[in-house]
């Protein structure tokens, strides 16, 4: 067990290293750098940047050094817990992300909880009452949910909300609270704005999860251990919930790996459409502006979270599935 865990930790660290190289390379892939896109945006608004200014900027940000030196310098900072300065915001990257990070987490965790709360019961119902009217309805709604892109759903809901309820449902705060310091009133304002983005973000995942839960459970329902449980005189509810549902839930533990980065980045497009102040749109803008330290930090963060999430889901599987936990101990 200990050998297994330490092997996983070492592998995880190696993976994180590889991710850091990859994210740096990917960010440097597009031609040009922050300075050239800065020049472009300045000259687009009619300004002018002198050659001398460009040289100064390049030197200031270390962009005149070879790529591997830039990478090593960046890594050197990261190891010390500093992530560099956002070229665009001219503030430390950790500060720029920090503002948005926990708002993203609030929205995403709410969405994940809602997804599971909706999908698991519906999935169980769909499997147990296979081919019933309820199953067909769930399947129909599920496929619609899968087929309709969530930004489309967001647009439609925003339109409907604006037209019929005269409510502007974008963002997470009303205008007057946007820049206000935290107060109870601001929290309450957030709570009022939260349900709609949560619902939109949750629906796409819900449809998918219903299908997965239904398929998993259908596989288990006809297994002999279910028949045996029934033959022992247990009530149908107990038979279903204690045995096949428990087994069908195991694969979900391995989805935690993908859940964590999702919780942090959120859905970029939906966040853009709804104007949510989350990390997703920030990443998009950083990539467009070639704000390499900001973009690199976010990509690195997502990569690390994926690795951590996978590690956590492995631990969770060990905990809930005796077949894995006790492998080789017989």
């Amino acid at each position, binding site marked *: 067990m200990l050998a297994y865990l330490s092997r996983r930790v070492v592998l995880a660290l190696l993976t994180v290293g590889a991710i850091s190289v990859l994210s740096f390379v990917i960010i440097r892939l597009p031609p040009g750098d922050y300075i050239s896109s800065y020049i472009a945006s300045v000259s687009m608004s009619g300004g002018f940047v002198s050659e001398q200014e460009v040289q100064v900027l390049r030197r200031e940000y270390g962009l005149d050094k070879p790529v591997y030196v830039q990478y090593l310098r960046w890594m050197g900072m990261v190891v010390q817990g500093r992530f560099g300065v956002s070229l665009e915001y001219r503030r430390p990257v950790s500060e720029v992300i920090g503002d948005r990070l926990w708002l993203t987490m609030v929205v995403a965790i709410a969405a994940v909880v809602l997804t599971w709360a909706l999908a698991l019961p519906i999935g169980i119902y769909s499997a147990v009452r296979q081919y019933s009217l309820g199953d067909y309805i769930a399947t129909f709604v599920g496929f619609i949910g899968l087929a309709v892109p969530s930004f489309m759903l967001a647009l439609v809901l925003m339109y409907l909300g604006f037209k019929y309820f005269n409510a502007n449902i974008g963002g997470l705060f009303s205008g007057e609270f946007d820049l206000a310091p935290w107060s109870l009133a601001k929290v309450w304002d957030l709570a009022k704005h939260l349900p709609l983005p949560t619902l939109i973000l949750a629906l796409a995942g819900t449809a998918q999860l219903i299908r997965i839960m239904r398929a998993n459970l259908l596989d288990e329902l006809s297994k002999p251990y279910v028949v045996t449980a029934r033959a022992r005189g247990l009530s149908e509810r107990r038979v279903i919930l204690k045995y096949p549902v428990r087994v069908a839930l195991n694969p979900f533990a391995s989805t935690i790996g993908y859940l964590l980065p999702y919780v942090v980045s959120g859905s970029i497009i939906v966040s853009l459409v709804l104007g949510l102040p989350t990390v997703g749109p920030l990443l998009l803008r950083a990539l467009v502006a070639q704000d390499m330290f900001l973009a690199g930090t976010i990509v690195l963060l997502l990569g690390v979270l994926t690795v951590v999430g996978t590690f956590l889901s492995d631990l969770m599987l060990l905990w809930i599935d005796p*077949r894995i936990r006790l492998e080789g101990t017989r």
Partner: protein
Amino acid sequence: MAAADQPILDVRDLRTYFFREEGTVKAVDGASFEVFAGRTVGIVGESGCGKTVTAKSILRIVERPGRVVGGQIYLRRAAHNGQASTVDLATLDPDGAEIRRIRGGDIALVFQEPMSSISPVHTIGNQMVETVQLHTGLGASAAREQAIEMLRLVGIPKPERRIDEYAFQLSGGLRQRAMIALALGGHPRILIADEPTTALDVTTQAQILDLLRHLQAQEQMAIVLITHNLGVVAEMCDEVVVMYLGRVVERGPVDAIFHAPKHPYTRMLLRSIPSIHAQVRTKLPTIAGSIPHPFNRPRGCPFHPRCPDFMPGVCDQNEPELRAVSESQAVSCFLYGAP
């Protein structure tokens, strides 16, 4: 004692159909047999002739789209006032409380695959304690004591340690023993064992059969042994029921079935047992053809397309019924009485 002459389980004309989109499958189509306390009935037949569905029908756990559509399943139970009462399981609500008390409490089921018949993510003890508590109302620690006793009874060494293990940690033989212990948790009077030894090697088979006989003597249990292994039948059973395509084609005491089989199907089954006295390098006789597809069951006697004694104009026109040919033996065949 008059009660001993009466069967504790009396299945009459049981019919279980599966209503599929492609048509109706008559998995069990008029099966009748009796089970007596302390005795063993063997149900034999090829795969797909309705043995397992019969067992599930008795417990009313046939999966959709299957349903018990006809017949009676009379279970005699000792009522609280000492008077015996009879209940027809076929009329009970399959989700009701009464049939749930009977499942595991009066009639228990042991399956052929001990590995997949025990939950892979719960310990054996977890499932045993659950059953004991359900049927006895004991507290958790008393139920655990009893579960350990049960494991000891079925011959599992170090039961107080094994009880916290999972099915996959046990060997095949121990697993089947645990499965039997699990079934015995509610002190059933009837044990239905569906191919209990099929997945085991020969030595273990013999041990499990010994165990069943031992338990039967100790608990005065009736056993319904479902198998296609006629050797097991000869060793274990008092009565034999031969099924073909969902029907009972012959039934009688084990000696009569083995020494004076009446139905051509029974005879052919017996002839296809490998014998130690057979000439070497001779082919083992088999039953020609295979079981017809359930959607197009043949007209008349269901066995007539494969029957060596097929009488044209009789067997393909009329359906034979189970008729007594002696005091204890009954057969459904026109060889023993024209339609």
